[in-house]
């Protein structure tokens, strides 16, 4: 397999986080994630880190799996870290090599920016790992329903998002097969000069587009055959039950925000 995308793939461990109603889980997660970006000092960063590690631990999803699904974003984190460390110049100089200077201020900023983004990502990815596409749809549907009154196709947007997540691994597998087939026919992407590489992307993209259209066609047939007509009359297999677990989740999220504010 040429590459694997694990972004947003459901992983079942039946933890409390899995049982938590998605209509409560998602707003709580959004609050936590937004709060992470207000982190400004070391104590707050420590609290943020503790909270995100707690969320991951609570989900009982193996750490490897959680990190695996944010791996594509490691590059972004590395760039943020490097830019701040290398280009921010306040505080005392730690190391100075020619024109490049690493200062205490730069190092701290790099750590802070990369740290709070990591915390937010950990929370976000854990929520995706513990929520099935169908329940994500239901949750977004419920959350966006006020906007539906303004004419926004809230349910349809939610459905499209969840189907996208459902088909990420399918399309990734197919991309892998296409890349392998091209490699066998001497059109490897990782060989030759820049021009050659750009040219070898074309067949992959064309074949992938064709396969995307085929899936879309089949999927529309499947949705029609199963009488999917938007969210209006739909019922739900699981009782959406807002009870003790949900109350605890809301309380903990509020406590986190309050604690963060107190530490400022």
């Amino acid at each position: 397999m040429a590459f694997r995308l694990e972004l947003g793939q459901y992983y079942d461990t039946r933890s409390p986080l899995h049982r938590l109603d998605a209509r409560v889980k998602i707003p709580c997660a959004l609050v936590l994630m937004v709060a992470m970006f207000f982190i400004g000092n070391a104590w707050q960063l420590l609290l943020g880190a503790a909270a995100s590690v707690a969320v991951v631990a609570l989900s009982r999803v193996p750490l490897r799996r959680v990190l695996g699904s944010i791996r594509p974003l490691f590059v972004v984190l590395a760039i943020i870290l490097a830019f701040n460390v290398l280009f921010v110049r306040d505080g005392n100089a730690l190391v100075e090599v020619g024109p490049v200077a690493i200062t205490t201020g730069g190092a701290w900023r790099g750590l802070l920016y990369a740290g709070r983004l990591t915390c937010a990502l950990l929370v976000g990815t854990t929520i995706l790992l513990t929520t099935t596409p169908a329940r994500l749809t239901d949750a977004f549907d419920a959350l966006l329903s006020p906007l539906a009154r303004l004419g926004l196709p809230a349910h349809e947007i939610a459905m499209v998002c969840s189907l996208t997540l459902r088909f990420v691994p399918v399309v990734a597998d197919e991309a892998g097969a296409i890349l392998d087939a091209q490699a066998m026919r001497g059109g490897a992407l990782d060989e030759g000069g820049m021009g050659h590489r750009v040219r070898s992307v074309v067949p992959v993209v064309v074949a992938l587009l064709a396969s995307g259209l085929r899936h879309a066609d089949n999927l529309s047939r499947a949705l029609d055959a199963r009488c999917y007509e938007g969210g209006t009359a739909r019922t739900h297999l699981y009782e959406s039950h807002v009870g003790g677990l949900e109350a605890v989740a809301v309380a903990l999220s509020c406590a986190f925000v309050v604690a963060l504010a107190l530490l400022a």
Partner: protein
Amino acid sequence: MAQTPAIRLADVSLVYQGAGREVRALDGVSLEIPVGQRVCVLGANGSGKSTLASVIAGLMAPDAGTVELVGERVCTEGQADFEAYRRARRLLGLVFQNPGDQIVTSVVEEDVAFGPENLGLPRETVRRRVDRELARVAMTDYAQADPSRLSGGQQQRVAIAGALAMDPRVLVLDEPSALLDVRGRAAILRVLGRLRRIGCTIVHITHFMDEAVEADRVVVLDHGRVALDGTPTEVFSHADELRTMRLDMPFAADLSCRLRERGVGVPVAMEAQELARSLAPRLGTVRLAPEQAPEGRATGDRAHASVPSGKKVLQLEDVTYSYRPGLHALEHVSLEVGQGERVALVGQTGSGKSTLLRLAAGLERPDAGRVVVAGIDTSTKRGRCAAHHAVGYVMQHPERQLFAQTVWEDVAFGPRNMGLTGAELEACVRDALELTLLDSKAGLSPFELSGGQRRRCAIAGVIAMRPHLLLLDEPTAGLDPHGCAGLHAILDRLHAEGVTIVEVTHSMEDAAQADRVVVLDQSRVLLSGSPAEVFSEANEVALIQHGLGVPAATSFSRVIRRLGVPVEGDALGVGELADALAAACRGGRS
């Protein structure tokens, strides 16, 4: 009770507007299906059977004609009534070929609930139906599983449960087992048998003739028209007509027709047992396969799954490989393939067949052991790249990788990357297109070709690189009988030209045509030897236990032996069996 038919089509036509030309997919089809009937629709690729499925499932309105579905007149003289369509669709279920594209979420039970939820049923009803249907398709234990981790056969059963949970009056299945292995297909047929007993109307579209035997009625489509319509026995008596429509026969019907051609007066049979019983009393000694298969010589001795003579093109020495730690895809597999050999790899889904091909193609590096292809060790990156050039690898559904503007350009992609230009390039592409019977299509876009032609085009792109070793992963999956036969003719010619071929197949009949059969089971080599050795009587039970089987002709020769007829040797193909039986009949009479 005299009731309105479940489905009624009157003079229905449907035309697809293609690029500058029209394709008449359905051409004046009239069909009435009474409630509770199990109908099998047969037809070659492009005969219009998938379109018919869409029309019956209420997903497509025809351009002309009248359609009544479950008592709703949805289309009158080409005028669709969309409200009636909506009402009818709630009572119709559809399952189609690709299970992956029908599953909308990541938990089996949620997916089965999707249809009833859309119908707006109360929660308790949804729950009851989900449980009931999962039990019916024997998937209760997988209610919480992730469908994408299930086998194709299991996914297809989830899709059937999802359709049945809507309590449809008519269930339409569009080639549900085309992409499944032997065990997956058998499970689907068992489910269909159970449904018939509870009176569900079933419209089953297939190009596996053997699946049609159990139906109440068989409808054969040809170029958008109903060509034959009757009980299985009636339809399969028209051997010649079926052949001109590029279709096959179920095994027993095929054998009885062949016997009749050879002057043996037997009725056209649908069941092998029934044919065997009517034939057995008239038989003398049946002499098959001159050299009798030495039974039991083919063993699971994995150190020596080899052929003794000649140069080795592919060697696997004690190879172990896993995609994820702790989960072996192949374990201690040793295998040697000699120059010019034709090897069939059989085994259930997940037995490691495809992994073996990927290793041989140099796409994966073995975790332990050695893979040597055409003298190249694939343990280094450089070695694997060299292996890519020596080996041609046709993956599953290679037509999905077509991309170029024209067929010619697509086939030329590989040779051009090898650095060929001018006359040399021309020659490579021309030969490959001739071999695959696509020379007249060189200027077309690959997307304009039919399914079978697209498959051949993708294969032409691989053989244009003139590989010494050709690896094929289920090259006939999803093709109709004519397409399968065409593909086998291509492989026969390549083999005659000296190309070494390793082919993964689910068909024991195809495997019987190879020089050697290698059976994989749970990441290991279970059996290896000539077809006669592997399919010997001693191995039959083991093969069946591992979800495989023996060719129908082999099985038939054993059935008549058990009925007390002296049979020497085993048959592998239906042709030789018919010859031997006809000879034995004359012998018996004189």
